[in-house]
């Protein structure tokens, strides 16, 4: 969708509804089409519903039929605003705004989960509570790993802004590796807690703890998948549009996962029940 906007607004693109012949002159309807007929010949092909109106579908069809239509433009030729995004009514990238809106809504999700944990952290059954099972040194190392993954992610964003795709892919891969290390540590932690007798339904504390940290772990896992997919797409030149914006959007998601863990690490692990 974004590419279509860029194509239409780019140099050499035709305005909607305007037809051009092969030499760039307006098509008055007498020029033969690619399939050999004229515009009047194509009347036979018009469906019973009538002539398609000047809606977006009709515009896209005309643009697709236009032999002069630019199917791809270099990044610098795309119509861009001062913020580097496509021209929008706000002057900002819609993709980026959508990502920030999504992250704002994610704050509500994790706010609710953290609130639930804080309220139920004292509801224990038996002897197994947070002070007995938490392994602070181990979790501290996990936190450090996730924090460093944020550094490698921002270095990837910095590299793609310099058009250095090779370095970008290296940093993205390292970020995915660090994220995998973190998730592996979380799986180990869950396993050890379970062996110590803390199941998901053992108490309100355990339910809220596993739900909160499990949701975070799921987000990290999704982030790893996004990172690996992005590396693959960059390698195969499958990323359309502005590569730096795509990497930046994935980076925003990854940093959000990091800041959620910053809050969880302090409120859940470091502050005693």
């Amino acid at each position, binding site marked *: 969708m974004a590419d279509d906007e860029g194509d239409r607004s780019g140099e050499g693109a035709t305005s909607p509804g305007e037809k051009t012949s092969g030499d760039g002159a307006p098509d008055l309807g007498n020029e033969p089409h690619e399939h050999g007929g004229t515009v009047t010949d194509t009347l036979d092909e018009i469906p019973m519903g009538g002539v398609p109106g000047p809606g977006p579908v009709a515009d896209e069809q005309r643009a697709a039929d236009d032999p002069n239509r630019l199917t791809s433009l270099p990044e610098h030729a795309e119509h861009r605003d001062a913020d580097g995004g496509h021209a929008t009514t706000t002057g900002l990238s819609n993709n980026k705004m959508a990502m920030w809106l999504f992250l704002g809504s994610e704050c509500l999700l994790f*706010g609710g989960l953290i609130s639930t944990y804080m309220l139920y952290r004292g509801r224990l059954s038996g002897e197994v509570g947070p002070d007995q099972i938490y392994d602070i040194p181990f979790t501290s190392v996990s936190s450090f790993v996730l924090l460093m993954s944020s*550094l490698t992610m921002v270095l990837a964003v910095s590299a793609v802004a310099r058009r250095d795709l090779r370095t970008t892919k290296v940093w993205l891969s390292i970020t995915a590796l660090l994220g995998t290390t973190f998730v592996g540590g979380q799986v180990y932690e869950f396993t050890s807690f379970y062996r110590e007798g803390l199941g998901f339904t053992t108490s309100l504390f355990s339910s809220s703890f596993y739900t909160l940290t499990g949701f975070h772990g799921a987000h990290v896992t999704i982030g790893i998948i996004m990172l690996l997919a992005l590396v693959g797409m960059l390698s195969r030149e499958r990323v359309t549009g502005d590569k730096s914006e795509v990497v*930046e959007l994935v980076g925003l998601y990854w*940093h959000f996962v990091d800041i959620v863990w*910053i809050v969880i690490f302090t409120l859940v692990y470091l502050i005693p029940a």
Partner: protein
Amino acid sequence: MTADAQPISTTGDQHDDHAAGAHVVEHEERDSHDSHRHGATDKQYIVIAAILAAITAAEVTISYIDIGPIFLPALIIMMAAKFLIVVSYFMHLKFDSRIFSFLFYLGLLLAVFVYIAALATFHFFDG
């Protein structure tokens, strides 16, 4: 220079000028684009990450030692500092449009409100 050559030469100069101008515009757009995206250099990012690691180490340290009544406020302040540093520098919110800040902090504010509302509910209705 012949009359025939003049238009060719002029056209070539115009083409060169156009290409050079386009290159300058492209370069300026890229610089603006990059500086907007960056906000900081790679070295600065490494320094920021070192600061974050140091704050994390301080958090863990004070959780093992008794520092009295300032324990909880100190942990909350350090957590907030780490949060703001990552959001401002790594997520570039400090250098980006205020609309993005509004969208994010509005969600965060609502999340805090949810927590306060839940606490209040438990306080008033928990039998």
